[in-house]
């Protein structure tokens, strides 16, 4: 696909740690088209945030090494110089974070910070930048944007701060927006508003969004395509409808089952995924999910499991994915 905005090919990100080198992202590939929302889902330690930060290479350069390709607008971002990269960060790719408070400077007003960001990208005068800032704030649904401009970050609520961050991210008219758990710290009612806002703005700006989250509900709300990650690997990759209709990886299935829906039968116990995510220092042999998998077979532990392509836009890292994709209910015949 050549019309992709962003193409990540076989990305590997590893860190030097005190207990040796760990690979937090291990051979991840996916793409984002303009106007598309791609979700990266997984639990803590699955590498989803590291993937996002690898794209802009925001990790500590002294202890991080990358390999693979990150193609954006004809360039491999991993090959760019720091100067060239700076022209991409915040100009063509913007990022919003889970905690807007730490990304805003507490000693400057919202207006100062927003105007500053605009002036950094656009050759316009201070007056016009201010007017544009107010316009952006209004667009993100902040009431009374003019008076907000004079306020400091701590005077705003969490939802409003996140709106300011979104306004900042949009100030450069980015082609790609990376959102790293932008609604996790917010109340559900606020979360719903922010998700709605992101969708509207994406359509208006025709940007692609890479949406990092742990919440399948949020994925169902907003994403077009989904990358499910587990312990540094992509375990399933497909469009959102296929994912929810025919999940082809036991981990995806487990995640869906263990989320109590508001119309689940409260009389039954929740299905669980036993155990916990292993640390990157103790990556299991063979299938990384085998230890926690209800459908595990002896073969699972003996070989490296590759992503199996099931259809044009559906791949799953499981030797039983073909069976699973049919929607059959499977067991492992009691093997453990």
């Amino acid at each position, binding site marked *: 696909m050549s019309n992709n905005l962003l193409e990540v090919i076989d990305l590997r990100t590893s860190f030097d740690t005190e207990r040796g080198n760990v690979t937090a992202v291990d051979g991840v590939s996916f793409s984002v088209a303009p106007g598309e929302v791609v979700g990266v889902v997984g639990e803590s330690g699955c590498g989803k945030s590291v993937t996002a930060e690898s794209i802009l290479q925001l990790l500590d350069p002294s202890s991080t090494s990358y390999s693979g390709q990150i193609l954006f607008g004809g360039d491999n971002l991993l090959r760019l110089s720091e100067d060239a990269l700076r022209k991409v960060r915040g100009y063509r790719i913007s990022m919003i974070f889970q905690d807007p408070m730490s990304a805003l400077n507490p000693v400057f007003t919202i207006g100062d910070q927003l105007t500053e960001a605009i002036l950094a990208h656009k050759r316009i005068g201070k007056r016009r930048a201010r007017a544009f800032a107010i316009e952006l704030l209004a667009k993100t649904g902040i009431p009374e944007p003019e008076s907000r401009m004079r306020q400091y970050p701590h005077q705003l609520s*969490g939802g409003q701060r996140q709106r300011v961050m979104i306004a900042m991210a949009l100030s450069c008219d980015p082609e790609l927006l990376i959102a790293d758990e932008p609604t996790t710290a917010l109340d559900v009612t606020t979360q719903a508003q922010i998700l709605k806002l992101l969708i509207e703005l994406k359509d208006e700006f025709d940007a692609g969004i890479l949406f990092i989250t742990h919440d399948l*509900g949020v994925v*169902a*709300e907003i994403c077009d395509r989904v990358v499910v990650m587990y312990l540094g690997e992509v375990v399933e990759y497909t469009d959102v*409808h296929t994912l929810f209709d025919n999940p082809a990886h036991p981990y995806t299935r487990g995640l869906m089952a263990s989320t109590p829906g*508001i119309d*689940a039968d409260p009389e039954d116990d929740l299905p669980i995924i036993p155990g916990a995510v292993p640390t990157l220092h103790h990556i299991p042999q063979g299938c990384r999910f085998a230890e926690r998998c209800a459908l595990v077979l002896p073969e699972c532990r003996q070989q490296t499991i590759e992503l199996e392509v099931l259809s044009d836009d559906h791949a799953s890292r499981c030797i039983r994915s073909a069976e699973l994709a049919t929607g059959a209910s499977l067991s492992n015949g009691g093997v453990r």
Partner: protein
Amino acid sequence: MKSDQPVLEAHHLSKTFSTRSFLGRTTSENRAVDDVSLSLAAGKTYALVGESGSGKSTTGRMLQGLITPTSGHVTVRAADGSTAVQTTARANRDVQMIFQDPYSSLNPRRRIRGILEESLRIVGEKDPSVLRTKVDEALNAVGFSDEHAQRYPHEFSGGQRQRIGIARALVVNPKIIICDEPVSALDVSIQAQILNLLRKLQADLGLAYLFITHDMSVVRYLSHRVGVMYHGRIVEEANTPDLFAAPQHEYTKRLLTSVPIHHPSLRTSAKA
């Protein structure tokens, strides 16, 4: 056990936090909880839901005896049927609490056994053999063995720590546990483990839970009765199925429609 008898009641609880200036004059007052009454039945779960700042945690802390209410009082019914009326912050061994953050809620410098024994020592237990057996029982109840007791908190994952936090509450045989967002800091796959464990413990031990949460799906799964808090007041209270079937208050309706959908085909702005 008489199931409908309330074990914990809040009577017109209010809490006002005031900010004082340098000279001790009250400069601003914030009414965090405003005339909240509720009653928790033995062996049942009452969910207190609301957004951050709605006063649900403050209410929980008044019921726990951590905060003195500005007005109103709390009654706790003990195992022998006697009732304790509390108007000031006072700990009651029948009421225990589990906390949101599994990392800061365990003392990093103490072994698991020490942390659990501390709960018993606080209520005056000194006999080493009693300490040992009770701690072992509580750890067993949450799925840990003797061997885990010798370790330090940092050797455990978030979900495991939360189970240790539950064991710490269980070890003194409480009737009531105040659960303050006990799963919201955990990964999805771990949340289900903890929720199942809490339900099992309720069935086995007849515990009553006051469950503070902002997650409607957890409410649906775990609670028998729900109180919806908004700006310090309970704006709606109902049995769980009724609340989900027919929410009355405007805020409850908004809360329910804000819950993320569980399938993309349910999108309202169906753009496929």
